[in-house]
């Protein structure tokens, strides 16, 4: 018998005795649902506000708490100047990016040499880039984070290898909460999901030394989110 059959056999034998329902102990009475118990998550997670305006304000507040830089632009015409300002301040000489309507626009506006990931790339070259510019799948107001995938954001490494991750997003990509973000990803991709889906909530961080927050542990020290 294979180990698979051994393990599944032991599981089936163990499950012949049923376990008490969750919450049967303590003060809360047990109850069961016919649907997935987590399907009402929206009612319990942190509240997000009803209007788009409130949700943009919430996203901005959450992003600021995470030490991400969020810039809500009036139109995409403002993007070139905003990008160039960062590029000049940080003395960028080369960026990495991927093919995409908005990412192409951003790279063209910058006018710097670009390493594109779409048809394969040299990892050492990408490591030397000053920034990675990607699109995304969603901005999540509830958390101040963005959802990217290996298909929408130029692969797996682009959003974590360069020291500055710049996300270019469209206003209509804002979703209210995490359940909405998961529903969107499922609707957009199922059953053929990209091999990686990542919720990025703020720049890379660690607290492993005396629980003191340090940004840029392994991934980007800075995360900038432009929304046009």
């Amino acid at each position, binding site marked *: 018998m294979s*180990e698979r059959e051994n*393990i*599944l056999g*032991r*599981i089936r*034998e163990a*499950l012949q005795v*049923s*376990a008490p*329902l*969750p919450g049967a102990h303590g003060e*809360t009475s047990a109850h*069961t649902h016919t649907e*997935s*118990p*987590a399907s009402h*998550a929206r*009612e*319990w*997670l*942190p*509240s997000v506000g009803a209007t788009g305006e409130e949700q943009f304000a919430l996203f901005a507040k959450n992003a600021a*708490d995470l030490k991400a830089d969020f810039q809500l632009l009036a139109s995409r015409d403002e993007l070139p100047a905003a990008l160039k300002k960062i590029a000049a301040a940080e003395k960028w000489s080369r960026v990495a990016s991927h093919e995409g309507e908005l990412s192409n626009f951003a790279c063209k506006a910058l006018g710097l040499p670009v390493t594109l*990931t779409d*048809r394969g*790339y040299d*990892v*050492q070259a990408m*490591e030397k880039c000053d920034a990675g510019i990607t699109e995304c799948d969603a901005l999540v107001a509830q*958390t*101040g984070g963005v959802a990217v995938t*290996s298909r929408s954001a*130029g*692969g*797996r*490494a682009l959003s*974590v*290898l360069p020291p500055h991750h710049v996300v270019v997003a469209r206003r209509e990509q804002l979703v209210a*909460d*995490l359940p909405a973000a998961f529903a969107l990803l*499922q609707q957009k991709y199922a059953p053929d999901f990209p*091999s*990686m*889906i*990542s*919720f*990025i*909530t*703020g*720049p890379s*961080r*660690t607290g*492993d*030394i*005396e*629980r003191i927050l*340090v940004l840029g*542990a*392994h*991934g980007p020290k800075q995360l900038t989110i432009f929304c046009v």
Partner: protein
Amino acid sequence: MSTFVSDFKTRATEKAGDLRHRSVIRTALRSYEIVRDKRKAAFQSWESARQAAAETKWEAINHLDKHLVALTSKLEARGTKVHWASTGAQAREIIAQILRDKKARSIIKSKAMTSEEIHLNHALEKEGFTVVESDLGEFIVQLRHEPPYHIVFPSMHLTRGEIKDLFQKELGDAPSDSPEELTMVARRVMRQKYLTADVGFTGGNFAIAETGMISITENEGNARLTAALPKTMVTLMGIEKVLPCFSDLALFLPMLATAGAGQPMTCYNTMYSGPRQPGECDGPEEWHVILLDNRRTELLADAEQRDSLHCIRCGACLNVCPIFRNVGGHTYGTTYSGPVGAVITPHLRGLQDWKHLSNASSLCGACTEACPVKIDLHHHLLQNRRNASAGEPAFFERLAYQIFGLVANEPVFWSLAKKLGWLTQPLQRAVKGSALDPAKAWTKTRDLPPQPRESFKDWWRNRK
């Protein structure tokens, strides 16, 4: 007394009196409860979320066979190679064989408690492979050749000064004791390791049966890089990590972050559903997923304590446990420490050897209250005590209770005992805590209240 018990007692006594250790742990956990409570308060209903999380894990664990079959067939359909391991030795051999087949030399690892559980690093190093931990805390304890102190914060027992000295000694690079600069040293060291590693190794936080995905939660980005750059990726995960639906993560990810570290969301929550797919520009060519039993099915067979397989390893019960905070993580001598470790270790490694952990508890219930998936931790500790004494009754304890029962049931004996107690108490005070005291284990650190001359019964009878 087994060596496990005596080792535990020795270490616990030492740590509980170690003021330096106490102050380091206090500093590390000082803000945890405050920020966690703030994040919990941001939920519209944390209690409803807990109940739903408990029910979701109940469904996953109580139909584990069905969910594992769904998970693995989805994973395999997209080119992932799934392996099953009944024991730690089997898992180590599967991983070593993958490395031999790939002619790998260097392995970059992101944090995985399952790999600690099966002592993977030691086994791979013995075969000549180079293994580097990339999580900063794990990297630090690896340099010190010691196991992680805490399942979420591996190096929380160390001060910046000690880490600076360690980096200076082991890496020859420690500009100052600033956490920022020390983190940058590790970042520089690790960057080159990423670019040259042959195999990337990860654990898994959740596995989604519906879509065939493994979700990894981390703050640093090291797991993201581990799963992006090396040509081969290996993931080791306990069989209990399953969740039924993709959308369940919308609840579990913020709850894990809140309970574990008081964060609204951990920085990177990443779902992998296969190796590099056609049309994708990077990612591993091969992905091996190893599902580990290692006696989890024995825990599953104990219906009373089956809910301890709901554990999402957030570490909340460790953070709030007065025993953990006093004796520290290394004292337990187990992979999983704190209340959840005390509950599951007797199942994973043998009840009689590890039953003492269930007594290392004040039964205050702080762990049960902190648990985001409502595991009945402190009652499980009582059940372990019951099961252990049923298996191996303590002779003297039983004798003592039998004598007490006899005395307490017989008024003549009882009044005699009262008189004897009053007469002998000066003697007890004289030998208290010393080698002559038969109850010294108890009286060493405790005072017996003085027994008055007149009992309540006498006073009642004599009142005017």
